[in-house]
Every structure is written in C-alpha cells, then in structure tokens.
C-alpha cells in the first residue's frame, strides 16, 4: 500500500487513518476541533452524520446521473475504508505478539539480579568492621610522632643559633658578607626575643661583636673605594641591612662617587687648552676640597697637581664631548641609578621607608648631580667657546647633539632635575654664538671679496676699459679676462654661495635627527630671530651699509674708492634688490620654516622683504649717484684745470682741438663702456639726423642778442618779467647733481651734465681774447660731435654747450667767432 500511492495521497490517507484511530481511542490532538467540524449532519465524515438527511438532500439536489456518480464514488470510498481497516487490524496484532514476548523475558532477568545485590551488601558490612578496628589500634602512635617531629625542628633552630657565631666568623673569613648578613638577619629577631636567657644573651653578644666587626670591615671596604660600582652598591646594601644610618651612607656613597667623577672631570679639563690658566680650575679645586671635607671623606686623595694638567694636544670637540659623555655622563647615570636603587626604590619597600629616607636621599642626589653637572657644563661651555673656527659645523652640531642626547638619560633618571634644561640652554647659547660667528665670518668674507675685487680692479691688466684708456691700452682693458660683469657675477655668486653654505651649516641645528631640534627654541626663535634676522637680514644690512660707507668715508674727493668699485657695488645692491634678497629670504624661510605671518605679533617682528629691498635700492641709488659724482668730478677737474690755467686773452689761433677735450671724450667713452658693462642702455629721446653736425651760433642764446644791439636801454622791471617768461618757455631748469636712474644713459647724462656745467662756470670766470673764444668754439663743437650719443636728451648737451660758447663770447674782449666750416674742418681733423 505504501508503494503504490503517490506521496501526497499516501500521507493524506495515512493522516486520515490515524485520525480515525485516534477517534476511536478517544484521543484528539486539537481538543475542540472535532466539535467544530461535526455540526453538519450532512458531513459524511462528521460524528453527527445523519444518513437519512444526507440521502434526502442528495435526492433533492442531484440529478440521476449525479446520483449515479455519487453512488459509485461512495462505493469506492467504502471499499478503500474496508481495506484500510483490515490493514490496521493486522499490524496491531503483530505488535501485541512481540510485546508479550519481551515482557516474559524481562521477568526472568530480574530474578537473577536480585540475588547478586544481596551478596554485595553483605561484603560491604564486613569491610566497615575491619576498618574501624584498625583505626582504633593506630591512634596512640600518631600523636607521639607529631610531637617528636616538632621537637626535631626546634632542636635544629637552636643548633643554628648556637652555631651562628662560628658560622659568622667563617663567613667573615671567607668574605662572604652577604651570607653572613642574611644569617644574622634571620637570627636577630629570635635572639632579641630571648635575650633575657643567659645562654641566648651570650650568643647574641657574640653575634653582635662579630657583626660589628663585619660592619667595620664593610665600611673599610667602602672607604677604600677601589672596588667597582657593583661591589660598592652591594656593600651599601649590606650596610643598610645592618641598620647603618642611611644619611651617612648617602653622603659616603656620593662622596665616593664624586671622587671618581672628579677624575673624569679632570680628564676632561686636561683636554681643554691649559693656558691661559682660567680661574675655573682653582675655584673648582677649592670647591672640591671643601665639599670633600664637608662630607668627611678621606678618600679625596686626588693630588692638586692634577688640576694643572700637562698640555695635551687639543682634541676636536666631538671627541671631547664623546669623552665627556662616555666617562662623565655615563658614570653619573650609573651613580644615579645605583643610588636610586639603593636609597630610594629599595628604601621605599623596606622598613626604612618610614624614616623619610627617600626624600632625604633624593635631595642629596639632586644637590650632588646639580653640583657636578654645573662643573661639567662649565667645562663644556669653555670647550665650546674655543670652537671659533666656522669650518665644520656638523662636528659641533653632532657634538651638541650627543651632549644633549646623553643628558636626556639623566632627565629620565631624575625627572625633576634642572640639568637637561641647563644643557639645552648651553646648546642654545652655542647655537646663537655660532650664528654670530657665521655672521662675522660672512662679513669678513664680504670685505675680503671686496678687497679682492679692488685688487682685480687695480691691477692694470685686469682693469676695465676706463683704466685701460688711461694707460694707453684701450683694447687690452676691454678684453681682459676678468671684466666688470665677471667680477660682479663672481662676487655675487660667491656671496650667494657663502650664504647658502652658511645656511646649510646652520640648518644642521634644526635637522630632524638632532635631538634638540624639536625644542621650541630651535623650532621658532632660532629660525626666525637667530637665523633669519641675526644672520641673513643682518648680513644683507651689512652689505648695504658697508656699500653706503663707500659713499661717505671716501669723501668728496672720491680718491680712495675706485669708481669702478662704486659702480660694481651699485649694481650688486640693485641685483640684491631685484632678486637676491627675496631669493635668500625665501630660501631661508623655506629651509627654516619661518612663519612669516603670525610672527608679527611677537615682540621681535621679522623684517619684511620689502624693507630690505628698499634699503638695498637706496644703497644702490646712493652708490650710483656717488659714482656719477665722482666720475663727473674727475672730468670736471680736467676741464676746470684746463680753463683756469690758460691765458685765454693771449692765445694763438686754434688749429686743433685741445688735448684735454679729446681726453674728456675718451674718458667719457670709457666710462660709457664701463657703465654699459653693468647697466642696461635705458631710454633716450630720438636723435635728430644731424646730431653731430649741429651748428653753433656764438649768439645762440636768443636773449643775448638785444644787449649788443641796443646798449644803455635800461629795462624796466616789467620787461624782464616778460623776458624771463619767454626764457622759461625755451629752457627747462636743469638739476646738475641730481639722482640718476639705473641705466647707462641716465648715468652718462649725469656725468656729462656735471662736466659741462663746470666748464660753463669756469668759462664765466675767465676773460677771453678772440682766439680764446674761437678755441672754446672748436672745443665745444668737438664735444658736441661726441657727447650727444651718450645722453638721454641731446638737447641738454646742446643747451649747455650753447651756454658755454655764449658765455665765452660774452667774456670775450674781441668777439669775432670762427667760421662754422673752419670749426668743422678742425674738429674732423682730430
């Protein structure tokens, strides 16, 4: 049956079968469900099924064919129900049979087991009886054994006590102090407790005597000081255990440590240059002796002669600091550790804690460390001060770094100590000192470079064209290998390089791997004030100032400073203004991370780039003005002498341009070349086509004409007013010694203005004969031919030369001017 139906059919049927079985046995799973379903009398599966009603209903509702179908369906269902019933009955029957078999079998087995259980209980009762009898027999002996074992331990303790003096003696002989002390410690309490008994009293006395001896010996050993630090600390530990006064021990320990550290310091001192004998060693010596007497330590037998060490070759600072770190600082650390181990940490746990020993010990340690560190620092500072050379900064920085790093160990050991801070201060001082040295080195470098430049300028072969002309070798000067621009570029390059290398050196102070570089000072103030302001800005200022001094100290004669140098420096300052300063400062700010913004709030605001540039520009302007003045004066002087020393009344007819004019033109040309080497051309007004050929009229100044025509016509005030207004229309006021612009034309204009104005004033102070005037005409024409090209506005030259010729004509006794054509011939001839 399981096999033929589909799964759903099977399960459905089975449920139905089971449902009916349950119904049969009065079981229902759902409780109220049957009642709910069974209300319909027409439900064929319900309990209230009424066949009559059902049939009537069917008959009423269904047709014949439906009835027929229904009937067949009903028959089918009835049949299947019958077969199900049969199957169920069969199954149940089988199960009944097997159950009956099992029950029968169980009945037999239980009977056998009952017998065995009885036997077991009998045996157990027998065992209990035996056990009770044994324990009752053994009870007496057990108590006796316990008592005996107690006696045995007591006897062993007593034996230890009696043997203690001998044992201690033996330990003393073998120098096994630790063992002796621990033994004694174990016995001490007992002995103390039973000291009223005479025998124990004797033992205690013996022990005490021995321990006294031992303590004596320990002290001796402690004083001798020859032992290692480890031995020493062991020694101290034992003595502490022996109730030695801790304070005294601290002092002794420290004074002992001091004597050894003193040796280290003396070794360091010996490395510093012994002369001149500084007061420090003496002072240190006295302090040392006083401190040692105060500590009452006889161990200070270091002879005073040691304080005057034999001159040793000066080691470099890194070695020195290394030695200081390895010898002094490390032993100091060792001392601090062992001291703390002994007196502070140890004491805190032990019974000594109550006596305020840690505080006392700590105070002593602080004082001790401060004192010694102060001396160490003074030595280090002295040594650092000897580092004058600025050659290798990395050595110093590394030394300082090591110095600082090692002090961190002390800082870790002694958290409250001022030592690391003072160490940092030393580093800061050393750094600022070093920056100062760099500044002065830069300054002297700059001055040296200037001296070199001066020498290069003074050396005839290397000099620029200007000097070359004077010496008659115009070409040689120009082609000289070291010309002005090269000098300038080499000068500025070397300055820049120097600054860069100095910055690089100084930068070591703030390198990441340097321990002190993250201190606030090195992060902030050192960068902004130390490096930027004190080093870079000061140097730039120095350059500007020293340049300006050339304008002042040289006086108005301009004798001491060669003009070329003035020109060079002016260009240098101008270059500083345009690029170098901002470059250097940007470099500095980048390298040293100077915060330009918020530092303005500080009390030391940093100098802005613009201010420095302004200074540089001012210096450049001043230098260039001074250059113009000096060069103008040189030419003026020639012209003045030539006018003043000649008898212009009795002179011969001009056949040549005077040599001095040629010289003026030559000099002007060479100055032009010189300036052109360093400065740009500049703007000039357009030239007229015949600039060099312009004709001079002796009476070119319009205002002078009427005076000759109508003499003795006194002009009323109104007339001159009108006249002056007319003049103003034609001529602009010319400032002679005025500021020039940074270009060649402006410089040349300045020089020529000065020269020609001097010429004019000198001419006005002289009286001329006919040929004198003609000579001036020739000279002026010659100047006109050559000078116009140098200036920004040739009308200026025209105007001044007109004035000169006009003034000469005025000052002439016999003003008969030369033919223009003749003048031109003379000038063209040379």
């Amino acid at each position, binding site marked *: 049956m399981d096999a033929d139906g589909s799964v759903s059919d099977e399960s459905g049927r089975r449920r139905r079968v089971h449902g009916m079985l349950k119904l049969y046995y009065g079981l229902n799973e759902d409780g109220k469900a049957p009642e709910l379903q069974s209300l319909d009398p027409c439900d064929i599966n319900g309990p209230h099924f009424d066949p009559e009603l059902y049939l009537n209903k069917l008959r009423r509702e269904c047709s014949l064919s439906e009835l027929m179908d229904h009937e067949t369906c009903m028959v089918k269902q009835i049949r299947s129900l019958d077969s199900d019933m049969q199957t169920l009955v069969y199954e149940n029957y089988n199960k009944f049979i097997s159950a009956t078999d099992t029950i029968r079998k169980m009945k037999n087995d239980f009977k056998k087991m009952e017998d065995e259980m009885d036997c077991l209980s009998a045996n157990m009762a027998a065992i209990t009886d035996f056990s009770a009898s044994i324990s009752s027999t053994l009870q007496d002996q057990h108590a006796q054994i316990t008592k005996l074992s107690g006696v045995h331990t007591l006897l062993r303790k007593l034996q230890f006590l009696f043997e203690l003096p001998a044992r201690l003696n033996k330990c003393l002989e073998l120098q096994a102090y630790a063992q002796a002390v621990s033994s004694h410690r174990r016995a001490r309490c007992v002995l103390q407790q039973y000291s009223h008994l005479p025998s124990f009293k004797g033992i205690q006395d013996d022990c005490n005597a021995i321990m006294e001896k031992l303590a004596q010996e320990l002290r001796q050993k402690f004083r001798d000081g020859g032992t290692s630090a480890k031995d020493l600390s062991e020694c101290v530990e034992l003595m502490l255990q022996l109730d030695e006064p801790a304070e005294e021990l601290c002092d002794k320990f420290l004074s002992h440590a001091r004597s050894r550290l003193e040796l280290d310091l003396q070794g360091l001192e010996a490395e510093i240059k012994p002369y001149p004998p500084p007061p420090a060693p003496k002072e240190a010596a006295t302090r040392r002796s006083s401190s040692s007497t105060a500590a009452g330590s006889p161990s200070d037998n270091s002879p005073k002669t040691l304080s005057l060490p034999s001159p040793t070759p000066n080691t470099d600072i890194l070695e020195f600091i290394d030695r200081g770190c390895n010898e002094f600082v490390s032993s100091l650390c060792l001392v601090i550790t062992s001291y703390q181990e002994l007196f502070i940490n140890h004491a805190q746990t032990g019974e000594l804690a109550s006596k305020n020993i840690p505080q006392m010990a700590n105070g002593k340690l602080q004082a001790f460390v401060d004192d010694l560190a102060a001396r160490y620092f003074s030595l280090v500072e002295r040594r650092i001060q000897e580092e004058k050379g600025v050659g290798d900064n990395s050595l110093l920085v590394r030394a300082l770094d090591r110095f600082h790093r090692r002090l961190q160990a002390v800082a870790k050991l002694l958290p409250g100590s001022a030592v690391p801070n003072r160490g940092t201060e030393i580093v800061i001082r050393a750094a600022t000192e070093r920056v100062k040295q760099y500044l002065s080195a830069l300054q002297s470098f700059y001055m040296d470079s200037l001296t070199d430049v001066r020498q290069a300028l003074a050396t005839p072969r290397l000099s620029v064209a200007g000097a070359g002309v004077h010496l008659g070798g115009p070409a040689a000067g120009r082609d000289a290998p070291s010309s002005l621009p090269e000098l300038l570029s080499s000068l500025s390059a070397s300055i820049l390089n120097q600054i860069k290398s100095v910055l690089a050196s100084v930068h070591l102070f703030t390198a990441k791997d340097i321990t002190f570089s993250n201190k606030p000072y090195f992060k902030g103030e050192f960068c902004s004030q130390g490096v930027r302001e004190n080093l870079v800005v000061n140097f730039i200022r120095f350059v500007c100032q020293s340049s300006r001094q050339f304008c002042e100290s040289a*006086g*108005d*004669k301009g004798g001491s400073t060669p003009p070329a140098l003035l020109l060079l420096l002016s260009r240098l300052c101008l270059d500083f203004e345009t690029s170098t300063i901002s470059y250097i400062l940007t470099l500095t700010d980048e390298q040293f991370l100077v915060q330009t913004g918020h530092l303005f709030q500080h009390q030391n605001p940093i100098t802005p780039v613009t201010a420095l540039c302004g200074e540089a520009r001012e210096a450049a302007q001043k230098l260039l003005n001074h250059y113009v003045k000096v060069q103008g*004066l040189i030419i003026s002087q020639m012209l003045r002498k030539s006018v003043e020393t000649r008898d212009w*009344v*009795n002179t011969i007819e001009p056949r040549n341009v005077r040599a001095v004019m040629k010289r003026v033109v030559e000099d002007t040309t060479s100055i032009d070349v010189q300036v052109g080497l360093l400065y740009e051309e500049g703007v000039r007004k357009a030239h007229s086509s015949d600039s060099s050929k312009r004709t001079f009229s002796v009476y070119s100044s319009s*205002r002078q004409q009427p*005076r000759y025509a109508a*003499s*003795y*016509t*006194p*002009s*009323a*005030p109104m*007339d*001159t*007013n009108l*006249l*002056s207004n007319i*003049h*103003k229309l034609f*001529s602009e*006021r*010319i*400032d*002679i*010694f*005025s500021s020039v612009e940074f270009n060649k034309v402006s410089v040349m204009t300045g020089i020529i203005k000065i020269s020609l*104005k001097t010429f004019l*004033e000198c001419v*006005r102070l002289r*009286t001329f*004969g006919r040929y004198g005037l003609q000579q001036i005409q020739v000279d002026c024409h010659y100047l006109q031919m050559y000078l116009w090209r140098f200036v920004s506005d040739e009308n200026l030259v025209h105007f001044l030369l007109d004035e000169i010729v006009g003034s000469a004509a*005025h*000052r*002439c*006794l016999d003003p008969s001017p030369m033919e223009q054509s003749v003048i031109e011939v003379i000038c063209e001839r040379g």
Partner: protein
Amino acid sequence: MEDDAPVIYGLEFQARALTAQTAETDAIRFLVGTQSLKFDNQIHIIDFDDENNIINKNVLLHQAGEIWHIAASPADKAVLTTCYNKTSDSRVVSCAAVWRMPSNWDSESHESPDDSAHNPQTLELLCHLDDSAHRNAACVLWEPMGNGKRVISLADNHALLWDLQESSTQATVSSTATLEGKGQLKFTSGKWSPHHNCSQLATANDTTIRGWDLRTMSQIYCIENAHGQLVRDLDFNPNRQYYLASCGDDCKVKFWDVRNVQEPVKVLEEHSHWVWSVRYNHSHDQLVLTASSDSRLILSNMVSISSEPFGHLVDDEELSEGEDNHQEDKSKEPLKDSVVSTYEEHEDSVYAAEWSSADPWLFASLSYDGRLVINRVPRALKYRILL
C-alpha cells in the same frame, strides 16, 4: 596771509657783485656791480619802496672795469669798494679801489629812466687798494660795524689790512698775513668776524677755511677739507661768535663751530650745483640764505644751531619795525630745521644774495644774466619768529 610777489629788476649787463648799502638803515637799498668787457660798467643803486612794491634805481658809472666784488662802507653811505678787472694791452689785471658816490646821485632819481640812463654820473675814486707787490684782489672786506677806516683785501695769497686816512683818500697797509704752502695758493673768499672786537678774519682757499687773528696776523684755526671742492663763500653767525657757515662746489652748505673743526655742526644738501653765497640774517640768525648756480635761492630755517633755538625769548626792539605790540612771551613749539622756501625766479646761476641792512625780512639775489630779485621772508615764518 598772502606773501608779496617777488620784485624783479633786470640789468642789461651780466652781474655778479651785490651788496646791501650797509650804512643805510632807513631805506632798503642794494648796490649791484655789472660785468661788461665792452662797455662802461655801472653800479646800480637799487632802492626798494616797500610800501608800493616799486623799485627805483640810479646808475653810476664805474669806468675802471668789470666789477667782481663790491662792498659798502659800514660808516659812510657814500663810500664803497670794488674789486674789478682792468684790461689793458691784452692783459687782464685785477684791482681793488675805494670809491665815493657823487653827493647828488639821487637827485635825478625821480626823473624819467631814459634821462638818467643817458647821463649817468661817475664814481669818484678815493684810493686804490693795491700796491705793486699785491695785486689780484679777490675781495675787500670792511670792518664790521666799524668807523669805515679799516678794510682788508684778499689778494692772491695775502691778506692785507689797510688803514684809510684823510677821508679815505689815502690807504696804507698796516699789516699783512701771507698764506704759505705748496703750489699756487690763492684766497678765494673771506669774512671779517664781527665778534671778538673785530679781531678775527676767516678766509677760504681751495677746500680749506682758515681763521686769522688780526692783531698778530697769525692763523688761529684751520678747517682742512671743509668742503669736498672749492669753498666759495663764508659768513659768520652774527649772534654766536664761534659759528661759521660755509658753502662750496660740493653743493653743500656747512655750519661749523670753529672750536671743533673736525666735524661740521650741520650740513645742508639742498642745492644741485655749486653754492656761491651763504648769508646769515643779520638779526635772526636762524634764517640762512644760499645762492647756487643751479639758479636757485634757498632760504633755510636753521633753528637748532641758531642763537634762539627755543624760539624768541628776548625783545628785539631795535629790529622790530612796528612789531613791538605783538611781542609777548608765548611758549611755542620750537621750529625744526627746514628749508623755508626755494626761490626759482632766476634763470641763470645765482652768484650773490644779500639781506637788506634796513629790513631784516627782505633780501635780494642776483643772477648772472643781470636779474635782481627782491624777496621777503614768508609772513607766516616771520610772525612765528617774532611772536
């Protein structure tokens, strides 16, 4: 307070020599000497009518030659000295002489200018200040506030002290001082100190300023390299005996305390070319006038080194002209050293500037083209000084 416009007067000749008529204390009067090689030179007597702002002028002939320097006697209004160049036989000789103006020189002053121009009167020569040994006089100095009997002439490297006798018609050299040294030394300028009983003289040669004691005719101080180049002019502070102003070709005006000649007390660098003349105001020594060949005249107020560094403290009754009522002791802020004004009326180099001897607030300047400009101290400053 509008300042009066400057008054300009034009000469038809070029001119360098200007002086105030020292002895005249009522009228504002200046003397100008012309430079002409071809025509007779003149001395223009310029009278300035302060009230009407009008110039009246008279011309006297100075036929001896072109005038390089002029100085008026402090005692006699009519007496003056000139240094002039005489050309003869293609030679130029520098001379110095004492002249007297004709007594009726101003009789024609109210006639038409044409008439006076056509008939100028001639100066009367009193005496020459030359002897054969000493020629080339650069300038002649009257004894300040003296009786008009003593003059000093500077000729080449000699300083000659002359005594004028018999109404200045006779001049005798009473003592001389000679500048010794290398090269051709030549006095360029000098000033007779009004202090120390008029016993001191300051001279300039090249870049050096020297002080002389006239009693012994010996040098008492020497300022080497007082200026970078030629020293052009000197003036003594009228109220502070050791203070001296100098100017020169380095465009600077320097103020010296002759007791310490190492460093100038003060330096002015306002001009852009040589400074030819420096003049202290006669009564208010903070006012300093400088004339330069940059065609400018500059009036500076040098309060810090004046005799009244904290403003006006005492009454200057003899100087104040109707200003007495305003004189009260007021506490004022001291003025700072400053350029008061730059006068640009000139077109050519200004070689001379002088304060009026009659009106302390008025001055004249002369440029080479013959233009004389009369200016006043700005009123604002004037009242600040006075009140």
